[in-house]
């Protein structure tokens, strides 16, 4: 029988012991003695969040297909276990074998959001691996980072041996084969890392140095190892249509945020919303093959026993064979007790028909994401939908039986004025009025509208990477203005207003566009007790502020400064396909409120064509108007909101 790393007494005295025992359905079982390479894959957040992540499931599968490799998993121990492990000096262990992570060859950490950075240090420290890469010995695991935040890895560069820039499907074989060779020929850790830097897409931070100007901006990014590449090129799975997909995903015992089969139908997005990092770095848009997806859906439902399937993509309505896929799922599985959960869809006859088939209209709510309150500002962010489309969509939904609507907006977008902010309230009011245009007998009581605003955070590799971010004070002022405006309107009782915490977003902004000097701040904040920063109940703003002060680094340098057009950014060494020139052109178009057509309508030469795949090479037929987005409720509940 599997032996557990933690004693009964510990497991019974902490919350949800099932987080730490492994043994889930579809867990891969191998004898560690029979493999050459032990790889531990980590999502630095609590189990329920980490287990819901698709990327890890894909990599887990790819790595375990290698006979010479055993890939296991680890997640952040929750606060309760964290304390016990420190008190009792228990090393962090992988779920499969329950062996200490420090005995592994690799520790791969996925970087999904900036606010998990202190959790990375927790993982390293509890694993008893030196936190700084420079302090690691030949016996310590090689620590790899990957995922969205690796598009600016500089704030955490000191903690990693190397970063994998781009999609994981392409290069792990090269990394592992090289490791085996190096091990057999007795090469050192340093020699291995130098050789890794020769693999396309790999960034070894120790091989570079940064020089700063007197004003703290970057003067130069300098190679310390002659053969290291000048630019690190993003890796792209060129043949996604039938790229391997894990048909036997892990099924956790406890309820996780994604307690369902997740089917990735395409990668990338043609829309080019100017605030969206995913929309830029996952270019070009690539679709998966319809017949392959049908087969995957069937196999995954069988192998997991899940009672729900959900489609994953940045904009599902743009998947060319969406109707056929959705009707197939409904016809094939609907009668077998499988719920079909729909991701973001444009509102049209098709989506309303599908929604009415798969969910109880009276109980569910629709989610619209206009993102900005005025047409001018929607043009600035290239969210090409008009007020007419929004109201028409809402009206159609109301006459189909819905009476609950959620609206997502961002505040603090570039060029935003008080009028734009008030526009949010006006739009919500207009939607409410659409509802009362329905004859009384068709209404389901009072309409319920929830307005949620997030604080806009500029991200690297977006047209807004140059822009100044609002200060928390400015954001809170806008928030209060909006609340006042909502309360002045006729339907104020039908409109609920939620907002995100300003301080958390402020820090996210700093870490998103930060440089190498921040690693010490992150380290100090962690040592002062910061952990699980993305959980608002654990976020300790004052400790972060102190860490910045102690290091004489100001947050406003990173957030509240319009960057010069020719400023060298910390992430400029990454070649993400999309060029800096294109992004700058887009930023200028944004300031003029000019819309840029989507990838299917017209190619604007963003640079992603170099990958020679996907939408760049498919015929660019006219894509339909971009109308509203509707979502299925209850998809991702990790974000914390305030009610007002």
């Amino acid at each position, binding site marked *: 029988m599997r032996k557990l790393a933690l004693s*009964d007494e510990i497991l*019974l005295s902490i919350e949800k012991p099932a987080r730490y025992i492994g*043994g889930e359905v579809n867990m891969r079982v191998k004898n560690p003695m029979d493999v050459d390479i032990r790889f531990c894959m980590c999502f630095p957040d609590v189990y329920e969040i980490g287990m819901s992540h698709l990327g890890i499931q894909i990599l887990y599968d790819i790595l375990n297909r290698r006979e010479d490799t055993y890939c296991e998993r680890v997640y952040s121990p929750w606060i309760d276990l964290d304390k016990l492990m420190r008190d009792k000096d228990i090393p962090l262990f992988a779920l499969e074998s329950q062996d200490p992570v420090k005995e592994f060859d690799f520790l791969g950490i996925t970087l999904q959001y900036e606010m998990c950075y202190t959790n990375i240090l927790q993982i390293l420290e509890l694993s008893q691996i030196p936190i700084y890469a420079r302090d690691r010995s030949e016996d310590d695991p090689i620590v790899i980072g990957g995922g969205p935040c690796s598009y600016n890895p500089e704030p955490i560069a000191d903690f990693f041996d190397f970063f994998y820039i781009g999609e994981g499907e392409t290069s792990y074989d090269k990394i592992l084969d090289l490791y085996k060779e190096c091990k057999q020929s007795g090469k050192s850790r340093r020699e291995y890392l130098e050789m890794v830097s020769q693999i396309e897409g790999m960034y070894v931070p120790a091989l570079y140095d940064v020089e700063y100007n007197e004003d703290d901006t970057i003067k130069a990014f300098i190679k310390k190892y002659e053969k290291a590449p000048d630019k690190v090129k993003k890796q792209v799975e060129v043949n996604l249509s039938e790229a391997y997909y894990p048909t036997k995903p892990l099924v956790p015992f406890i309820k996780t945020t994604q307690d369902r089969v997740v089917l990735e139908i395409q990668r990338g997005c043609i829309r080019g919303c100017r605030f969206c990092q995913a929309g830029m770095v996952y270019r070009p848009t690539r679709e998966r093959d319809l017949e392959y997806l049908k087969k995957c859906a069937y196999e995954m439902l069988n*192998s997991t*026993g899940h009672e729900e399937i959900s489609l994953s993509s940045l904009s599902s309505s743009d998947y060319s064979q969406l109707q056929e896929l959705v009707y197939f799922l409904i016809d094939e599985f609907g009668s077998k007790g499988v719920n079909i959960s729909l991701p973001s869809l444009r509102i049209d006859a098709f989506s309303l028909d599908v929604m009415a088939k798969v969910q109880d209209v009276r109980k569910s709510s629709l989610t619209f994401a206009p993102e900005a309150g005025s047409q001018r500002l929607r043009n600035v962010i290239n969210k090409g939908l008009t007020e007419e489309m929004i109201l028409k969509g809402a009206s159609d939904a109301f006459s189909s039986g819905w009476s609950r609507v959620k609206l997502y907006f961002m505040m603090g977008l570039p060029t935003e004025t008080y009028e734009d902010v008030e526009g949010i309230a006006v739009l919500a009011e207009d939607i409410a009025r659409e509802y009362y245009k329905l004859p009384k007998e068709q209404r389901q009581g009072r309409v319920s509208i929830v307005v949620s605003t997030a604080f806009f955070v500029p991200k690297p590799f977006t047209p807004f990477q140059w822009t100044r971010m609002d200060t928390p004070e400015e954001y809170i002022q806008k928030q209060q203005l909006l609340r006042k405006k909502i309360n002045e309107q006729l339907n104020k009782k039908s409109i609920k207003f939620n907002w995100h915490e300003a301080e958390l977003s402020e820090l996210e902004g700093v870490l998103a566009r930060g440089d190498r000097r921040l690693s010490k701040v992150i380290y100090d904040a962690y040592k002062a007790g910061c952990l699980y920063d993305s959980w608002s109940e654990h976020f300790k703003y004052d400790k972060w502020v102190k860490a910045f002060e102690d290091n004489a680094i100001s947050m406003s340098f990173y957030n509240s400064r319009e960057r010069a057009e020719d400023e060298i950014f910390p992430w400029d060494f990454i070649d993400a396909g999309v060029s800096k020139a294109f992004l700058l052109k887009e930023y200028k178009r944004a300031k003029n409120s000019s819309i840029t057509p989507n990838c299917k309508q017209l190619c604007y030469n963003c640079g992603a064509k170099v990958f020679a795949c996907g939408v760049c090479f498919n015929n660019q037929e006219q894509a339909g108007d971009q109308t509203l987005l509707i979502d299925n409720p209850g998809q991702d509940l990790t974000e914390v909101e305030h009610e007002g």
Partner: protein
Amino acid sequence: MRVRLKFQKYGPMKFIGHLDVLRYFQKAFRRAGIDSEYTTGFNPHQIISFAAPLGLGLTSDSEYVDIGLNSSEAPEIMINKINEFMSEGFYVTGFQMLEEPADNEKKVSAMSLVSSADYLVSLKDGYCLGLDINNIEKFNEVFSRFYDRTEITINKKTKKSSMLVNIKPMIRLVSFDESDYKNKLKELLLDLPTDKNNQSSYFIDAESKAEIYDNNIKIYMQLATGSVANLKPELVIEAFCNDNNIEYNPYAWQVHRLELYTHKDSMDKLIPLSRFNK
């Protein structure tokens, strides 16, 4: 058709709570391709109910779950089919098709049938009860003295108040040795034919999955369980510890459920749930 499954829960699976076990079985039945009956509506779910939820940390040889099926193959085939999809720590040992209730009878849930349960409570290794009773002979002697009292009162706490309860009548059997326990149990059981496998039910004689500890300090006990009277084994141990000035440490004891029983209307004799097909 209603079917009663009997299963063992052991090893790391003792850390899976009751609601998660429910979810686990629903998914396992789907993986195994069992033709489950579903409720109707927008969120159809399988018809499934457990006899007596097992607390976190406890292991068991005899858990029971009633499920609704639209169709079924022979019991032996069904057991094998389900076990093929069970994780280590779950093992199905019984499959029994239940009699349809007559028109004038109500459906009885497994939960309402349960009247008592057998437990094996063992002291885990590495825990000390106090120097003078840390060997079996001494422990058995002290525990017997505790059990032989005419009244055992404990302070039972509810959300609002606490009251003194005599738990002695709810303890129906105590033994320290397996063969002695089995002999005593025989007296309490209704005499049933030994061959229990037939067209509508199939049982596997599986080894007990109770964890064994070197110190060998253990107690077999039968306790009232269910809606009429319910006594948790942990409460007995706590009372014993309090009575003997031993600090009660809930982590020091492994509780293992051996069997669940019901009894026919007026008769006092017990029937294991697996031998009762309603």
